[in-house]
């Protein structure tokens, strides 16, 4: 049976949903093992077993987090060799993609990013050119490296939980030799809202908000949604750059995307047109966003959004 290695990096006290998704995909492809980095809490170890991990590899070095990407790729390459894995699954974060990129070079393996589904034969499905094409791709090498987007599958525990063995993997001595060192780190204040790239619902605002994100944030909170923004809104400094959805920002594929005061030019469309349902509110009936909206309202967002927020609160009460 094929060995599938899932890379899990510093989960803290609990595994993220996206890690559980990777383990679920791994079980559909073969026998899953985990290359782990960071402190392994008991709850996390138990969850790894519940999701079918047969082995948990851990690095011999504790300082991988002090450097950018390179030593983690070196460790993961060593774990692949130890586990004899033929497929590696990594989360589709910027760092995850770069670890996969370097792993590919180290082990002469094909790397496919932004994967949304994997067939049993290793064929990976993704969308390209800002969601205008769906493609299927395959690695032509003995080892396949995939970075998989969050919300690709419903995580499920294994039918029979396993008791994974722990194996220490020797990190190459030169792993940190030519790596950039992280000299300072500041945590940002958590918004308490879901992560934009993983959120089931996104409420996004643009130029039409004229500096006031209040109505968008209130609707987002009523729906338990993440807050997004167009480039016009982030460039104007109305909201943090992290919130930008679009060509130069984040690509999101939520169940529901509510666009408020965004014209929907191609730069924005690129980041959200794979959303399942799109709702648009804009006072300009000619806005391109109405060409792709499942439900569009031509109207004043400062009237429509607060009214919707009140109605949602009423119905949920």
């Amino acid at each position, binding site marked *: 049976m094929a060995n599938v290695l899932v890379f899990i990096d510093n989960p803290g006290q609990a595994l993220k949903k996206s890690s559980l998704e990777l383990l679920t995909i791994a079980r559909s492809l073969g026998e899953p093992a985990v290359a782990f980095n960071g402190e392994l809490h008991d709850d996390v170890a138990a969850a790894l077993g519940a999701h079918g991990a047969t082995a948990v590899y851990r690095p011999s070095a504790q300082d991988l987090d002090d450097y950018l*990407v390179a030593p983690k790729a070196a460790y993961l390459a060593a774990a692949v060799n130890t586990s004899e894995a033929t497929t590696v699954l990594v989360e589709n974060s910027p760092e995850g993609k770069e670890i996969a990129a370097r792993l590919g070079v180290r082990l002469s393996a094909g790397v496919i990013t932004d994967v949304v589904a994997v067939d049993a034969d290793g064929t990976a499905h993704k969308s390209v050119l800002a969601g205008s094409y769906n493609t299927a*791709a395959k690695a032509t090498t003995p080892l396949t490296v995939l970075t998989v987007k969050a919300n690709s599958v419903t995580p499920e525990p294994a039918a029979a939980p396993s008791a994974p063995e722990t194996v220490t993997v020797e990190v190459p001595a030169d792993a940190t030799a030519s790596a950039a060192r992280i000299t300072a780190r500041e945590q940002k204040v*958590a918004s308490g809202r879901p992560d934009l790239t993983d959120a089931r619902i996104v409420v996004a605002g643009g130029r039409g908000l004229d500096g006031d994100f209040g109505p968008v944030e209130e609707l987002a909170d009523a729906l338990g949604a993440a807050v997004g923004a167009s480039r016009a809104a982030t460039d104007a400094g109305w909201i943090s750059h992290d919130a930008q959805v679009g060509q*130069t920002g984040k690509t999101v594929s939520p169940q529901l995307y509510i666009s408020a005061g965004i014209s929907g030019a191609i730069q924005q469309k690129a980041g959200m047109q794979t959303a399942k349902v799109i709702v648009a509110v804009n006072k300009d009936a000619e806005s391109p966003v109405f060409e792709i909206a499942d439900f569009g309202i031509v109207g004043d967002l400062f009237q429509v959004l607060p009214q919707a927020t009140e109605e949602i609160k009423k119905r949920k009460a």
Partner: protein
Amino acid sequence: MEETLKIIVLVKHVPDAQFDRHLSGEGHTTDRDESILSELDEYALEAALQLTEARGGSKAGNKVIALSMGPAGAVNAIKKSLQIGASEGVHLTDGALAGSDAAATSLALAAAIRHIGADGPVDLVLTGMSSTDGETSLVPAQLAERLGLPQVTFASSLEVDGGRVTARRDADTHSETVEASLPAVVSVTDQINEPRYPNFKGIIAAKRKSITTLSLADVGVDPSQVGHAGSWTTVTSAEERPPRTAGTIITDEGDAGIKLVDFLAAQKLL
């Protein structure tokens, strides 16, 4: 007086994202008939120009080399870079490169960078945060791995001093400062600066700047290592997504917020 710098900026010609873009042919590669300099590469070029101008520019011996890999059309990305202010251009072009994936692209670019470094060491390789077409962001990390150089990616600020590069990186949950020794591979985000436009003087000056054309043989790469044959991934199918069609559009008559919630309830999204 600060040390002079030799900087390579990777520039890519990409289909203009303002228009519909297409995949074509057996290998499902991107059509590049109407191509422009990738917008995100302009930030890397601007960062290179600011670093070298602070050290006296090309007069003082600093170099900003725009390197592009691709067919004949890729030269347009180099010409635009020369107009904006790069001091010289290098065009790596070879029929065998068509269809290269990130691994093959990084292999060819690494060879070209080594070739350029043969007549004087390169201090920095600068790139944008991703291309606006492939959007995989794999190439900078793979270049660093292949060249054995520190990787400093997604820099939102950048300083070079005393043979070291210091950068700030902004992630969703935290910001960090990273440090590496030169030479290094650095990718920059669209937050790092405000790229300049080419002015009339720059457009005239660009006509006198040289563009060196390199083939795979010039940089010592065997054609079998690149292109479709040398790539480690293959696209097996590509289907154009049916365009989204407009649904129900209503004009607010005072109750559109309620109707919006009705719609969400009907879609089971509440």
